[in-house]
C-alpha cells in the first residue's frame, strides 16, 4: 500500500451539526442560562444549547467512546472541544438539555466552566511525557482543580479567571498571559556531561541558545563551560544539547505568576507577573501550590469590582497593595533583571503604604 500524504485534516464542513450548518454565521445572540449551559439563538430563531464539562485532557479511548455514546443519545452524534480543553455537548433539541445534564451528573462529569468561572486549566505534559519538565502538569492541575472545583461549577467570581500551567520555560501552554500561571522552574545550572556534548551537540548552537551569554567554548575538552553566575536555568541549552541536563529534585519546583490576560476586552492583553518565585515539588497534591492559588483567587474575588480581571484589579489598586492584601512576601526575584527590566521600575514617588 502506498501511503498518501498532505491530504490535511477532516473537512469541518462534514462535522458540523445540522443546526450549525443551517445557521452558519447567522448567530444573533447567546445567553448563559446556568453554569455550564449556553443558549445560542440564530436570526432564523433556531436554538443551540451547549452543555460544557471539564476534561482531564489526558483521556483514554474509553472516555472518548463514553462521550460518543452520550452524544449519540442526546446530541444526534455531534460534540466539540474548546480551546481550553473542555468538552461541549451540542444539543439542538431543548427537551434533551435537562435529561442530558442530569445524566452527566450521575456519571460524575463536572458541568461548568462558563461565564465568571475558573475554566479548565490549559496545561502541558509534565513528567507524564516530556523530556524537559521541572514539575508535573496533570497532577498539579488535578490538585488545584479539586480544591477550586466550586469555582468551575459556579459563576460566583467577579470575572473570568484563567489558570494555566507549563512545566518548563518552553511554555507549551499560553501561561504567560494567564490570570494565574503556574510555571515549572529549575534553580540549578546544567551539569555538563562532556562525553555527550562531544558526541551529540553542535557547540556554536548551544552557545547561541543561551539568553544571558553564560555558555563559552571549552576548546581543551572540545566541550563547553557555563558561567554559573550568569545562568538563570532556562534550560535552553539542554533543549539543544542532551549533555547539559539541569533537572534536579531539590532545584526543581513551581513559580506563580498573576494578572495576565489574553482578550482585548476593556484593556489590552497583559503578561502575567511573577509573585511567588519558588514552591517545592510535593507530589501528589502540591499543597503549597494549591493553597497559594486559592489565596490569590479569594483575595481577588473579595476585592475586585464586577468584570474586573485579576490584572485589571491589580493595576487599579497597585502591586504594593496586592502584596499587602495577599500576604505574599515580596522577594528580590520579583524585581526584573532581564533585558527590559527598567521598564518595570517605578519612576514616581506616588505609591501606597
Amino acid at each position, binding site marked *: 500500500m502506498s501511503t498518501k500524504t498532505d491530504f490535511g485534516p477532516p473537512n469541518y464542513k462534514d462535522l458540523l451539526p445540522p443546526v450549525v450548518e443551517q445557521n452558519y454565521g447567522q448567530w444573533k445572540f447567546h445567553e448563559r442560562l446556568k453554569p455550564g449551559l449556553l443558549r445560542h439563538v440564530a436570526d432564523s430563531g433556531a436554538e443551540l444549547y451547549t452543555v460544557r464539562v471539564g476534561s482531564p485532557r489526558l483521556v483514554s479511548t474509553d472516555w*472518548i467512546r463514553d462521550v460518543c455514546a452520550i452524544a449519540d443519545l442526546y446530541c444526534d452524534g455531534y460534540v466539540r472541544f474548546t480551546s481550553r480543553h473542555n*468538552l461541549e455537548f451540542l444539543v439542538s433539541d431543548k427537551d434533551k438539555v435537562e435529561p442530558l445534564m442530569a445524566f452527566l451528573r450521575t456519571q460524575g462529569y463536572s458541568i461548568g466552566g462558563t461565564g465568571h468561572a475558573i475554566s479548565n486549566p490549559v496545561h502541558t505534559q509534565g513528567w507524564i511525557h*516530556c523530556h524537559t519538565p521541572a514539575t508535573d502538569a496533570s*497532577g498539579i492541575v*488535578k490538585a488545584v482543580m479539586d480544591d477550586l472545583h466550586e469555582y468551575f461549577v459556579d459563576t460566583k467570581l467577579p470575572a473570568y479567571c484563567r489558570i494555566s500551567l507549563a512545566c518548563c520555560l518552553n511554555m507549551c501552554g499560553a501561561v504567560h498571559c494567564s490570570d494565574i500561571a503556574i510555571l515549572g522552574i529549575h534553580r540549578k545550572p546544567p551539569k555538563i556531561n562532556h562525553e555527550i556534548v562531544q558526541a551529540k551537540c553542535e557547540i556554536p548552537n548551544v552557545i547561541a541558545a543561551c539568553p544571558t551569554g553564560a555558555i563559552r567554548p571549552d576548546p581543551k575538552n572540545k566541550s563547553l563551560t557555563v558561567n554559573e553566575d550568569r545562568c538563570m536555568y532556562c534550560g535552553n541549552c539542554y533543549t539543544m544539547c*542532551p549533555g547539559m541536563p539541569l533537572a534536579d529534585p531539590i532545584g526543581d519546583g513551581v513559580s506563580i505568576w498573576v494578572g495576565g490576560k489574553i482578550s*482585548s476586552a476593556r484593556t489590552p492583553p497583559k503578561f502575567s507577573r511573577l509573585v511567588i518565585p519558588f514552591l517545592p*515539588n510535593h507530589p*501528589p497534591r502540591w499543597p503549597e501550590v494549591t493553597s497559594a492559588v486559592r489565596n490569590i483567587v479569594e483575595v481577588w474575588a473579595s476585592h475586585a469590582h464586577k468584570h474586573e480581571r485579576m490584572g485589571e484589579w491589580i493595576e487599579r489598586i497597585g502591586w504594593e497593595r496586592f502584596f499587602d492584601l495577599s500576604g505574599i512576601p515580596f522577594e528580590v526575584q520579583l524585581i526584573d533583571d532581564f533585558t527590559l527590566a527598567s521598564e518595570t521600575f517605578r519612576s514616581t514617588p506616588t505609591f501606597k503604604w
Partner: protein
Amino acid sequence: MSETPMLDELEQGPWPSFVTEMKRAAEKKEAARDLINQLERSYVDRIGHWKHGGIVGVKGYGGGVIGRYSDLPEEFPAVAEFHTFRVNQPSGWFYTTEKLRQLCDVWDKHGSGLTNMHGATGDIILLGAPTSALQPCFDDLAEIGFDLGGSGSDMRTPSCCVGPGRCEYACIDTLDILYDVTMEYQNELHRPMFPYKSKIKISGCANDCVAAVPRSDIAIIGTWRDQIQVDQAAVAQYAAEGFDITGEVIALCPTKCMEYDAAAGTLHIEDSECNRCMHCLNLMSKALRIGKERGATILVGGKAPIVHGAMLSHVIVPFMKMEPPYTEFKELLEKIWDWWDENGKMRERLGELINRLGMRTFLKAVDLPPAPQMIRIPRANPYYFWDPEEVK
C-alpha cells in the same frame, strides 16, 4: 498494597482524574500500565524519566511524530519507546461521534489508548506508540482521513476559535480560513524548513479565544470598521430587566464613546471613537451586534519566552478583508516567511528577528506602509535611521 499510592490519591476529588483514565487504558495496554508505574516513580524521585529527544517519523514527512524514550527501559519496558503523534484537528474541534470512534479504533489497534483532547497547540495528541507501530498507525489514520500536524521548525498546526459555527461575534470565517490555510501550506506543515517554528492562530474577534496574540507568530483577529449595530428595543429590554447598563457597560468602556440615556432608554455609541474591544457586545449580545464591514487585523511576533523573552503579537495590518481564497493574506504570509527564512538565525522566531533588524526593515521587506495603529506610542529616543534616498 498498591504499587502506585501517590497516583491513586489523585483518583480522589471532584475534578476528573487523569489517573483514572490511565488506569482504564492500562486494563488493555501494557504501555499504559508502565506509563503509570514510571509516573509514580517520577512522583517519588521528583524528576522526569524521559530521555532527551530521538528522531522518528513516517514516510514522506519531516514532522508530526515526537520521539520519546524512557530512561528506565529495563524497569518499564512497555514505554521504552513511547512516541507521540500530533494529528491535525478539524477546524473549531467539531466532531461527529463516527469520526471519533474511527480515531479510537486506530489508536486502540496501534497505540497506548491514551490521548490528549487536545494538545496545547490544538492537535489531537496520540500519546505513546513504539517505533514499529508508527508507519502502520499513520497508514490507518490516512485511511480515515486524519493527517499529521506540525512539529519542529515548520508551520505548526494552525488553530482557530469556534467562529461562525456558534458565535455571534465572528467577524471572519475562522473555520474556513483555518481549513484553507492548512490545506494550502501542507508542505510547510509537514516538512520543517524554517529557522524555527511558525504559529498561525485565528480568532473571530478581540476576545481572542485561541490566544492568537500571545501565542502565534502570525495572528488573524476579526474586527469591523463601520458601526456597532444597536437594537434600541433590546437595549430597553435589558434596562427593564434590571441590568445596570451605566455601571456595567458605560462605566467600563475604555474609550468612553458610549452614552446611555436612562430616561429615554436609548444607547448612543460614537463609533468613530470606539476601539472595538468587545466589552459592551460581551455584556449585551441581544442588543449589540458587530458591524457589517468586516475583516481582520493582522498581528505578528507573539511567542513564549524561549529564547529572548516572551512577546505579544503586534499590529502590522490594521484592516484586511478576509474573503476566499484569501489571496491578500497568503501573499503577505509568503512575503513574511521569505524574509524570515532569508534573515532568521537558527531558532529565531519572527518576533525576535523583527526586534533584531527593526520594524522599519521588516515593513520595507514585506511592503507594508507605516500606520499609527501599529504602535502604542512613538519612540522616545533619537536613535533612528534614514535611507540615503530620503536625504536629498
